[in-house]
């Protein structure tokens, strides 16, 4: 006979405000097999856990139902408490009275009735629970970091400095990400390259870091501690071992007019190129789409001039397989381009540029060597307008969120403009100034008060060209929506920060979730900001939402600590929530008939064929067998099995059936 304890939590007022917790506990106490029931304000607190532990010991409980929040929140807490009191942790079940009941319903009888139902089905279920033992798996103590922006760089260095190996893959020919494109950085106005490039070099030289640039994730299999990643190393068309980075090829390449990605199209590069002089690694790649040899079969100038014979026209992409125990995703973000904005000319005005382009103009390493000159004719703009929230906070554009970094970089841009163009006039159209952060508000005030930037609160409805000027027409909402028109020489759009193209596919490859805007989703918005819902995969930087550098770095260090924590163990324990194919006494051996539909259904290739032999070693039956190391407990095979021979431990057919019958009151 079961002896079950029911522990009803108020969750402060989260549950008790709409559910009569005392009544739930009292009703549960009347069920067959329930030996103890109680309600308490915070079950997860120390005294709360002690109530559970004491009841287990004193009443000799054989099963526990905690009726509180989501198991995603506290299942580990309560299972641990049970284990500490000597009960197998898998004899503990949780009824989710908070997310599934109190938060979504109003206070009334029916809400309490529903809570009682939720408890009842788990009381019935737990009667069919069995003791289960955790599965031990080894940990591969190498981390894969995807994306070499500041977040990926920080995460790699932090992990490498704990003594563990790191493989860093970067899609572009150089690491550095967006930060390498920035001129100065808010709120201190220190030079971005000066603080970034030493770190880039450190990555390249760190004995624990293996860097692959021009590389992307091809596929990912496995699970926490034991991932297998295939990496595509795109062909650079050079032999990196031979190349000395002398730069002969890039000076002699005749194809010189390709818009440079690093300079956001404001400068040009050659077909064989190093994205910027401080690139790491400082070795070129051939952009095959633009190289005359690959297009027309003739040229090979680079091969002729290369003193070490490093050019390899026939090099192919390489697929490399690596084993890693943890992954940090740090693939960053991108910004909307002006062609997204019909009202601002669909990108047809050369002098309507993005904030990133302005960074390149203001940067000493940029196409104008740091002078603010407009792209159309190279003139220094006497009047410049900055537009905040270009696309952001605009549900009509499908981007209802705030991009968070632009208020700050606009203030920086306007300030840099005022410092560089004496007597110039700058205007900022904004909705609100969002400058929350240490030293941030002060920074914006400096732009307004010390540098005389004109802030106008209002939106711009359109920009058009007239007599060589850009007419910016908007409204000043602090002056009763008075129409304002500014004849500007240049306009900078703080275009919305959005997820990278291909973010969705990457997330699907790794089985991690993403939000409606394709930013990768953290496991908990407050308490698990760097974890994903897939164990062993962590997030850092702007791939999770638009973030500035301090936040990206903090996240990266956070993710690195999680990885180091994981690597501090030699073995990991995994929940035994996996599939098993039943085995019975001869002559049946198993109800499995060997159709192996499950083999093709399993997304993790976890099901094998097992030969059942008689004493003479003759095969008498071929049945399915689940490899516990590979099974993720997704349950797909259970749905496919036509003889109901597979069960997920902890969620057996019997348990599920009992739950349903409990609801129907027919137990």
């Amino acid at each position, binding site marked *: 006979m079961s002896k079950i304890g029911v522990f009803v939590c108020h969750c402060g007022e989260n549950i008790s405000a709409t559910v009569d917790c005392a009544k739930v506990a009292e009703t549960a106490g009347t069920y067959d097999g329930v030996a103890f029931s109680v309600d308490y304000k915070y079950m997860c607190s120390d005294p709360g856990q002690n109530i559970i532990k004491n009841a287990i010991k004193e009443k000799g409980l054989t099963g526990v139902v905690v009726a509180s929040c989501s198991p995603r929140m506290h299942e580990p807490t309560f299972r641990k408490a049970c284990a500490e009191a000597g009960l197998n942790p898998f004899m503990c079940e949780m009824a989710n009275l908070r997310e599934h009941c109190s938060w979504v319903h109003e206070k009334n009888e029916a809400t309490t009735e529903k809570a009682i139902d939720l408890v009842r089905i788990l009381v019935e279920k737990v009667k069919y629970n069995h003791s289960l033992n955790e599965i031990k798996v080894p940990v591969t103590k190498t981390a894969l970091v995807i994306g070499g922006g500041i977040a990926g760089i920080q995460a790699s260095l932090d992990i490498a400095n704990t003594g563990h190996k790191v493989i860093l893959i970067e899609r572009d020919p150089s690491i550095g990400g967006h930060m390498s494109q920035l001129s100065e950085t808010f709120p201190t106005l220190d030079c971005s390259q000066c603080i970034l490039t030493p770190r880039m070099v450190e990555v390249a030289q760190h004995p624990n870091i293996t860097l692959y640039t021009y590389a992307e994730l091809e596929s990912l299999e496995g699970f926490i501690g034991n991932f297998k990643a295939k990496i595509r190393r795109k062909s650079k068309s050079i032999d990196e071992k031979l190349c000395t980075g002398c730069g002969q090829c890039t000076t002699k390449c005749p194809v010189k007019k390709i818009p440079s990605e690093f300079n956001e199209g404001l400068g040009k590069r050659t077909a064989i190129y190093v994205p910027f002089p401080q690139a790491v690694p400082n070795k070129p790649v051939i952009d095959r789409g633009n190289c005359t040899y690959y297009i027309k079969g003739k040229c090979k100038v680079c091969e002729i001039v290369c003193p070490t014979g490093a050019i390899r026209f026939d090099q192919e992409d390489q697929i490399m397989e690596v084993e890693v125990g943890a992954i940090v995703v740090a693939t960053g973000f991108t910004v909307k381009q002006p062609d997204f904005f*019909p009202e601002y000319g669909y990108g047809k005005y050369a002098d309507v540029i993005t904030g990133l382009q302005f960074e390149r103009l203001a940067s000493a390493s940029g196409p104008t060597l740091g002078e603010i000159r407009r792209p159309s004719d190279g003139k220094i703009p006497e009047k410049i307008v900055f537009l905040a929230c270009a696309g952001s906070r605009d549900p009509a554009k499908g981007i209802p969120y705030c991009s968070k970094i632009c208020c700050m970089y606009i203030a920086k841009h306007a300030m840099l403009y005022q410092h560089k163009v004496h007597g110039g006039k700058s205007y900022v159209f904004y909705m609100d100034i969002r400058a929350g952060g240490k030293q941030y508000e002060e920074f914006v005030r400096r732009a307004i008060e010390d540098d005389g930037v004109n802030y106008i609160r209002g939106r711009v409805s359109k920009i058009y060209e*007239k007599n060589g000027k850009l007419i910016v027409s908007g409204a000043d909402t602090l002056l009763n929506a008075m129409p304002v028109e500014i004849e500007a020489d240049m306009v900078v759009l703080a275009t919305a920060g959005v997820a990278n193209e291909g973010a969705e596919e990457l997330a699907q490859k790794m089985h991690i979730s993403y939000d409606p805007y394709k930013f990768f989703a953290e496991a908990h918005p407050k308490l698990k900001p760097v974890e994903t819902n897939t164990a062993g995969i962590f997030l850092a930087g702007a791939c999770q939402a638009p973030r500035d550098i301090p936040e990206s770095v903090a996240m990266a260090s956070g993710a690195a600590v999680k990885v180091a924590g994981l690597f501090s163990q030699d073995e990991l324990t995994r929940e035994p929530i996996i599939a098993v194919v039943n085995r019975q006494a001869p002559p049946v051996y198993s109800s499995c008939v060997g159709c192996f539909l499950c083999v093709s259904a399993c997304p993790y290739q976890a099901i094998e064929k097992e030969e059942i032999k008689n004493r003479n070693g003759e095969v008498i039956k071929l049945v399915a067998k689940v490899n516990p190391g590979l099974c993720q407990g997704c349950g797909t095979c259970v749905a496919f099995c036509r003889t109901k021979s597979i069960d997920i431990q902890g969620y057996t057919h019997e348990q599920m059936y009992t739950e349903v019958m409990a609801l129907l009151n027919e137990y």
Partner: protein
Amino acid sequence: MTLGFYPGCSLKGSSREYAESVLAVAKAFDINMEEINDWNCCGATAAHNMNKELSLALPARILSLAEKQGLTEIVVPCAACYSRLTVTKYELSKDAALKTVVTEANGLEYTGLVSILNIIQMLDKYITPNLEGRVVKPFDHKVACYYGCLLVRPHEILKFDREEDPQSMDVLMLKAGATPIDWAFKTECCGAGLSVSRTSSVGRLSGKIIGDAKDRGAEAVIVACPMCQSNLDMRRDAINSYLGEKVDIPVLYITQAIGLALGLDRKALGLQRHFVKVSV
């Protein structure tokens, strides 16, 4: 072939030439435009500022009458009427309770199955595909196609053309032999209903439109809305005093311009009714 026709108030009064040119072009392609019997005002801008149900009941009555008459597709040349009818159809399709209120108020059955075409859609569907060999006098002028506020907005409901930089009229005019210019005031407000109450505001708002068209070398402004046409044409004195110069670019309905390209009689197209002389 027969299409339903909802002229609305303007096309019976101040914009008779719009109706004339629509009918003339339709006739040239053997399209019979069957007017909806006993039609009423769509409510225009007044009704939806005062009473939501009324503002839906008026257009719904028109659609019900069209159904009753067995029309499946109706042409609504006025941009404001087109907007009201389309918005009504949209709102009633989404809200069954509202639909009941409106049907009961009208005492007429309403299924919402009539499709509504604005003039651009009508031309695009029935005229331009058959244009080959019919353009006898290409409208060989630089034209500024002016869409105004209502033809393309709100986009979620009308789902017609690009809302910030529409192109459909430009494409039609290109087929009629014109050279549409790229200009900045395609969808700016002309001042609309302020025509009578605040003529000077109309002078300013419409003045910017005419001014930009002139600066970019347009020889004619092409419109598809009676309100836009009358503001840009009839209020030319106010516009000119805002601009401080005399601008005499004519403002033609798209059906008039296409009618000219087809070689139709100028009088049949009502060109003599304009305030600014149509010299093109």
